[in-house]
């Protein structure tokens, strides 16, 4: 038996998982329309690579990754692109994001699938393959998978995270029960890529069926993997905490698990990696739990881009619903409407009602009871962080390691004053990030401004030098041609060179004028020549008159 470790804090909220595990994973009928967000992952949004009106096949690339920290987006089924527009998506801001709308044709026609044999691939090639297949972490953060393979190889321990600690969510549980063999296959791929010495499946002990299924799949494959039942505690499924429980080692603040020789993947992601490699299928569908105030709480395997409303309808929404939560009740976010599309990160949608989630009483002042300190799994001082965040004292909040907060909500759950603590931390974090961003922009602007000043100064100097050189050359020429009489006017000796320039310019102008001919007087008919002669005569008389008039106009001198 493996020795397990514990972490500080944690809570035991009612798990509410049994409701949605009574029925197997179902499929919803193909929706008529899918809305695929181009920013479903952490990092840069993907760039659309299809046109409106274009027919796309299932699994065809429709959004290409931009830069190193991004993921590809694929068409979940065949159909026609009907719009590429800003649409409301599942984001706490409810601001719209660029989405591709796909009119589904129902033919489910696949594009070419590129299955690969992972044994022939090195780590870099596998990274490239997963990037092309748009595989991101399905645990909730949607971190591009290829980036997690990029660091520190080999790793000592590869952890497959099936803890699923948040209440209500059962998508990983059902996936492990039904598709254990595929998950084990995915784990093999990851072990190969990371050259891991030890592979552990961490599953909370409230999922005995999943543990049994995984153990069976490992035994069938005869693999040296180990399934470890970890105690049920929230947030035991957070990567850092699962690592602590399984290995006893702590990921240092600001570091990655790979820095201590551990890497952690969600079991859903592992399944997606298997599909991407063995079957050549990009990430176009995921298992999602629909639970809460519905008659049929269960899991669905739904295409990315399906509206939540369709899933909720399939589960038969009950009266009394007042809002919808994507994710779990602890860390999830409230959806603006049920009509937003499923993204790769959507593991669960909870149909909430006042009966299930009684409205929070109005917050009372903090009494510094430090129950939050006892609950905080990151060993922070939540009451101090709250104090600094609410007084906009961000420097102090950072000193108290605000950025080590994983926003699990354990502190707010135990708070007797019902203060929305996590909201304060999120506010402080986003303010600090914005300020850092501004600071960087200011530093860049300063650098560019200083360089510009330097450049202008340098250009001025160079110009002065060039001029001085030219002057010297001209002065030399003057002394050499001193014997030749130069036209002298009322010019001071010092202005000689200037006069020289002027004279030279005048000469040039004269020469140019002499060389210029009117170009339209060749090959003229006699009539035209006669006409020109008349005009010339008239011009001559005008000149004469003008000359006379000018002479007359001149004031008589000394009269």
């Amino acid at each position, binding site marked *: 038996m493996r020795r397990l470790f514990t972490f500080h804090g944690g809570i035991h909220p009612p798990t509410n998982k049994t409701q949605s595990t009574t029925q197997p994973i179902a499929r919803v009928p193909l929706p008529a329309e899918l809305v695929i967000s181009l*920013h479903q992952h952490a990092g840069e*949004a993907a760039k659309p690579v299809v046109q409106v009106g274009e027919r796309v096949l299932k699994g065809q690339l429709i959004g290409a990754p931009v830069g190193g920290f991004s993921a590809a987006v694929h068409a979940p089924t065949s159909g026609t692109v009907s719009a590429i527009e800003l649409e409301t*998506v599942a*984001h*706490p*801001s409810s*601001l719209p*994001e660029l989405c591709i709308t796909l009119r589904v044709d129902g033919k489910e026609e696949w594009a070419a699938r590129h299955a690969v044999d992972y044994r022939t691939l090195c780590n870099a090639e596998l990274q490239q393959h997963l990037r092309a297949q748009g595989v991101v972490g399905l645990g909730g953060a949607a971190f591009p998978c290829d980036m997690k393979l990029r660091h520190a190889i080999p790793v000592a321990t590869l952890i497959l995270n099936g803890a699923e600690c948040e209440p209500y969510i059962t998508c990983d549980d059902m996936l492990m029960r039904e598709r254990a063999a595929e998950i084990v296959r995915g784990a093999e791929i990851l072990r190969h890529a990371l050259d891991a010495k030890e592979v552990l499946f961490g599953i909370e002990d409230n999922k005995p069926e999943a543990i049994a299924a995984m153990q069976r799949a490992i035994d069938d494959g005869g693999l040296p993997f180990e399934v470890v039942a970890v105690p049920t505690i929230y947030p035991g499924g957070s990567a850092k905490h699962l690592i602590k429980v399984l290995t006893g080692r702590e990921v240092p603040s600001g570091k990655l698990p790979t820095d201590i020789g551990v890497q952690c993947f969600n079991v859903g992601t592992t399944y997606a990696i298997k599909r991407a490699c063995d079957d050549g299928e990009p990430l176009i569908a995921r298992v999602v739990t629909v639970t809460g105030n519905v008659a049929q709480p269960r899991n669905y395997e739904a295409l990315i881009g399906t509206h939540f409303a369709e899933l909720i309808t399939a589960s038969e929404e009950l009266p009394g619903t007042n809002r919808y939560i994507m994710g779990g009740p602890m860390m999830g976010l409230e959806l603006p409407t049920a009509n937003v599309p499923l993204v790769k990160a959507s593991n669960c949608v909870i149909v909430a009602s006042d009966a299930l989630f009684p409205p929070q009483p*109005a*917050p009372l002042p903090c009494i510094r009871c430090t129950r939050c300190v006892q609950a905080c799994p990151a060993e922070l001082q939540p009451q101090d962080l709250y104090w600094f965040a*609410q007084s906009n004292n961000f420097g102090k909040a950072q000193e108290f390691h605000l950025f080590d907060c994983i926003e699990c909500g354990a502190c707010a759950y135990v708070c007797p004053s019902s203060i*929305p603590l996590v*909201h*304060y931390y*999120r*506010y402080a*974090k*986003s*303010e600090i990030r*914005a300020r850092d961003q*501004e600071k960087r*922009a*200011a*530093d*860049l*602007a*300063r650098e*560019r*401004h200083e*360089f*510009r000043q330097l450049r202008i100064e340098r250009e001025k100097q160079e110009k002065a030098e060039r001029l001085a050189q030219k002057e010297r050359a001209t002065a030399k020429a003057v002394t050499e041609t001193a014997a030749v009489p130069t036209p002298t006017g009322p010019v001071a000796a010092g202005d000689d060179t200037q006069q020289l320039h002027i004279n030279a310019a005048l000469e040039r102008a004269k020469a140019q004028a002499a060389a210029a001919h009117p170009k339209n007087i060749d090959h003229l008919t006699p009539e035209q020549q006669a006409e020109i002669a008349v005009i010339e005569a008239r011009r001559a008389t005008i000149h004469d008159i003008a000359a006379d008039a000018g002479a007359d106009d001149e004031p008589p001198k000394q009269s």
Partner: protein
Amino acid sequence: MITALWVMVAIAVVLGVVLGYSAIRFRVEGNPLVEKIDAVLPQTQCGQCGYPGCKPYAEAIAKGEADINLCPPGGEDGIHKLADLLGVEFKPFGENTKPRAKAVAFIDENDCIGCTLCIQACPVDAIAGAAKQMHTIIAAECTGCELCVAPCPVDCISMQPIPEKPGNWKWKYPVIPLRQQK
């Protein structure tokens, strides 16, 4: 008596040498306060303070010639920071200096005649273009100083406020809705 005098003189000489040496060895170039003030300023180089750039304004503040409330792009936050740094009282913005929403310049490329006047005006070289070639703003480098707007002979430069997108969205300060007692 004489010995005591010599000892005092010797001490004075030694200390003098040490002080003289450290004055040369640890010499501080320029006024470090200017650097500190400059670090607080937003570096838009817009000249709205009446000085030709952030550094000259910082120098003026350090000398005590300028007030700390002349920098609209820095916002009230900037004044607070300057007040903290200099140990003076916070001073609100004057009547005519009010901070505006952040914006970046935008060149209507259909109208641009390629005169390069805006390029010469830009303090951070954030405009790409050449004589008789269309110009464009490098939005990521633009500080929103508006110095390019006035020189444009065809008025093709406008200031576009930076829209709020999910990428730059910030969590708002928690507001607790008040419910009426029944």
